[in-house]
């Protein structure tokens, strides 16, 4: 596979953003983006989990599932890997840094059902990436997701909802803002190197 790792990474962040182009990870994105501070926390957590689980799932898929002809179980296995990893991370953080643990609070369990994390693993399999490419893709997607949630939080903190019609407040407004952001990100595809 000759795709440069750098191009893959940049494309995962910008032109094929996991949230703005592939619509993954919307639930926690919409509910947590009210404040920039919590968004940073969740974004970093998602980035970390995404990168690590992509690497783990790669290993599990190619060293366990494929040789044993159990590919059709990949959904169950991936989800279990993700859930186990998140649980492990939670325990490690709780033991070594209670401060961090309390500030992250409910985010960690929330990440398990974040469709973006499972989605990245599934995409990696479909597109036949090598290990390095998978890690780059996972990291890039994580950063892309974090970028999107930070942007939305930043905008929402400044929006004065008094001027918005009642029916449009809350989730609908977030969706419109996200749509405009997605439009903006499409502009990145004009950079010839990436896409």
């Amino acid at each position, binding site marked *: *596979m*000759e*795709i440069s790792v750098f*191009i893959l990474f940049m*494309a995962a962040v910008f*032109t*094929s953003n996991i949230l703005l*182009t592939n619509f993954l990870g919307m639930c926690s994105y919409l509910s947590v983006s009210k404040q920039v501070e919590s968004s940073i926390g969740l974004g970093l957590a998602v980035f970390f989990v995404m990168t690590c689980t992509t690497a783990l799932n790669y290993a599990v898929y190619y060293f366990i599932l494929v040789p044993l002809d159990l590919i*059709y*179980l990949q959904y*169950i296995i991936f989800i279990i890997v993700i859930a186990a990893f998140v649980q492990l991370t939670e325990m490690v953080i709780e033991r070594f840094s209670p401060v961090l643990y309390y500030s992250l609070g409910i985010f960690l369990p929330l990440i398990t059902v974040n469709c973006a994390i499972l989605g990245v693993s599934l995409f990696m399999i*479909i*597109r*036949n*990436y090598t290990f390095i490419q998978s890690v780059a893709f996972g990291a890039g997607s994580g950063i892309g997701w974090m970028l999107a949630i930070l942007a939305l939080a930043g905008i929402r903190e400044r929006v004065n909802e008094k001027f918005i019609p009642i029916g449009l407040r809350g989730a609908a407004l977030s969706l419109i803002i996200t749509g405009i952001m997605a439009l903006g990100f*499409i502009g990145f*595809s*004009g950079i*010839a190197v*990436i*896409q």
Partner: protein
Amino acid sequence: MEKQKIYFSETKFYPVFFMMVITIICVGILATFYHLTNKRVENYQATQIQKQVLETFELPVMSVKEDYEKYITVRTRDNINFYEAKRDNIVIGYCFPMQGSGLWGTIRALVALDVELSQITGFSIIEQNETPGLGARITEAWFLNQFKKKPIILNDEIIKYSLIPEEEKAGIKEIQQITGATASSRAIVNILYNNLVEIINKFKNS
């Protein structure tokens, strides 16, 4: 003295036991489903390729299996597998599978050439994973049809087509690219060029 009755469901062992049992049941059901349908899926995939070969040759397809057996023979030379199409026992063309990397993954395609290996008579994509709405448009008919009737060799050299914007008119050596999908368009041109170089060099002597 009262004997405390401890239910199995209250022991610490129960969750683990429950998990194991339910996992075994689920996996068992899934395995059954999978093996029941596996043959069907494989059959389908083989038929798809056959159908696509026929279509790239622009042969009429009524029943994939029969028409495939009627017209197509699979041959190998120098490690290259290719399809030979015969009508009324006369060879009318050759079709080569090719693959290479697109922006997002491997692109697999079929290119049909005429008997003298001088012109492209058909081009189709088997598999691609490009960005939906952008790069994925390489599967659209207008893009693929541009390659039909294009000569392969000009001035004794294999042509590497150059990309021009979608609105401009294309000359012999040019292909209209997909707006906003430069990389995917370029990937197609590169895959075509690289594979054709290999094919022509190996078949030069026939």
